């Protein structure tokens, strides 16, 4: 090979040489399982006996499964409440704790602890704190203000709400940091202009800060919804879907169907539907953002 052709060849090959390791791990551990899962959705998966083609049966079954329906409802409710509450609390924390002074930095770092703490640890901690007896930490605090002991995670009416509290405790500070970044990006001159116009603190917030934070709010919202749909660890550790199925979510249901009950084809069909839902949500979000950018 002449030098020139070799150089040309190298130029053509090297981008792929650099990409090869990444493409390999993505192909084997992301794309292939995705496609394989879609493929298995149409089968009754029977280890050792061979898979049996059953068409759309797994999907029809999923649409008629009351447990899955309840799990989907819990997941959506959980996502909606925790996303909204985390954003609201995160926003107020950001307003309260934004600033360069040392004591603000200290409070901020403390508030940020839950974010860098593994979900498993958070779940263990709150499992102890939310102990249903009157000696439980949270019940002692409630007792001090005259409220009787609550069941929390052991009460079917309170379990989902209790899990949400734990999730909000971990995600509100996360949203806070993103909002603080947004606040730092607000044009200071707008504040000065508002002051000159004699705007009150509330008006300044309503007409300057909140509109300026709109793009970041969209990001926090998207991240939150994706976080919400995939909820697994905290539920699995805190309640394992119980009591009486009151905290079953899509992914805990998936785990039980696929791993504990070995209905792998059925679990794959649900995974496929969840994947389609995620893709549709993402596309809607992109389309919505593109449309807003144009207008």
């Amino acid at each position, binding site marked *: 090979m002449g030098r020139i052709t070799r150089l040309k060849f190298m130029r053509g090959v*090297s*981008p792929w040489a*650099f*990409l090869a*390791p*990444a493409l390999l*791990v993505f192909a084997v*551990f*992301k*794309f292939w*399982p*995705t496609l*394989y*899962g879609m493929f*298995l959705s149409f089968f009754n998966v029977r280890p050792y006996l061979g898979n049996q083609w059953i068409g759309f049966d797994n999907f029809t079954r999923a649409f008629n499964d009351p447990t899955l329906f309840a799990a989907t409802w819990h997941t959506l409710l959980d996502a909606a409440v925790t996303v909204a509450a985390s954003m609201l609390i995160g926003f107020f924390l950001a307003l*309260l*704790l934004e600033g360069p002074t040392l*004591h603000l930095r200290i*409070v901020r*770092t*403390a*508030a940020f*602890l*839950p974010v*860098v*703490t*593994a*979900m*498993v640890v958070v*779940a*263990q*901690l709150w499992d*102890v*704190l939310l*102990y249903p007896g009157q*000696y*439980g*930490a949270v019940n002692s605090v409630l007792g001090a203000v005259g409220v009787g002991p609550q069941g929390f995670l052991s009460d079917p009416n309170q379990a989902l709400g209790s899990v949400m509290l734990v999730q909000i405790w971990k995600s509100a500070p996360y949203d806070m*940091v*993103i909002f603080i*970044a947004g606040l730092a990006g607000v044009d200071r001159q707008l504040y000065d202009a508002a002051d000159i116009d004699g705007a009150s603190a509330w008006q300044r917030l309503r007409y300057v800060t909140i509109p300026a934070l709109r793009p970041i709010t969209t*990001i926090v919202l*998207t991240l939150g919804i994706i976080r919400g*749909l995939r909820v*697994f*660890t905290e539920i*699995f*550790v805190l309640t394992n879907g119980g009591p009486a199925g009151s905290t079953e979510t899509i*992914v805990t249901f998936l*785990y039980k169907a*696929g*791993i504990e009950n070995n209905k*792998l084809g059925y*679990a*794959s069909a649900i*995974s496929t539907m969840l*994947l389609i839902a*995620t*893709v549709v949500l*993402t596309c809607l979000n992109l389309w919505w953002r593109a449309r807003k950018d144009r207008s």
Partner: protein
Amino acid sequence: MSTTKTALGIRMPSPRLLRGKIARGVLYLLVLAVFLVPVWSMVATVFSGIPMKSGEISLFPLDFTFNNIIQAWNFGVAVGLFNSVVVVVIGLALQLTVSSLAAYSLARKKFRGMSVVMVLILATMMMPEEVIAIPLYLVLGQIPAPTESGSLLNSFGGLILPLVGWALPIYVLTGFMRNIPLELEESARMDGAGDFRIFWKIILPLCKPALGTCAVFGFLMIWDQYLLPLLVAQTPAKYTLTLIVTSLQSSQELGEGVRLAAALILMVPGVIVYLILQKFFERGLLGGSLKG
């Protein structure tokens, strides 16, 4: 302006400002009570020697002891910690290597198929890993490997390899490398340096801040893994620390101190990494999300 003179001529904050200051102080204390006190009570309970009933915690380390830590250590935390450290060290090294190589190509080269690769990789960012957990488990069981199980199940390979490909560091590093001036690279090319040399000697050292960001996020992502080890690790010898911590949850007779001790050991490395690399973390959160 906002101060009033007292009779003695001491400048005092006006009553309105003072009220605002007190209100803020109360709110700070409330924030600390909500976010710090639970974590603090965990630490205090772990180092308390007095026996606790279920659900009881301590606000101060009464009768200071290391007993809970020692018990937790002997009940699997030692093995779990070892496994988790192996997974996070090898996993993070591979993740950063693979991501920076891919990012160099995506940031600096123009080639046919580039946009397809970009879209495919970014698409996985929107796809929660939980969604493919079940088929991934089956795939891991099919890949032959020189392990006891004959596949990647119940092996370090199965615990590590699925975490190596992650879209976030590729995205962050690609964005960062695009902003490195081309002239630096061109002059090296004049001197006869090849692609890999340029990547290794010029681009990578300039990427240190971005690599720091990716290291924090990658560390926390790998360290927190729960569903993957739950599927892959089938014998306690391969349990990661997250699995050990939840397995202690069901051993009620050990008491709250022991399981919280295991949880604390799981928590500390994450907090340390965050405190050391705090500026990278915040920058990454902002940079990544602002562009996202």
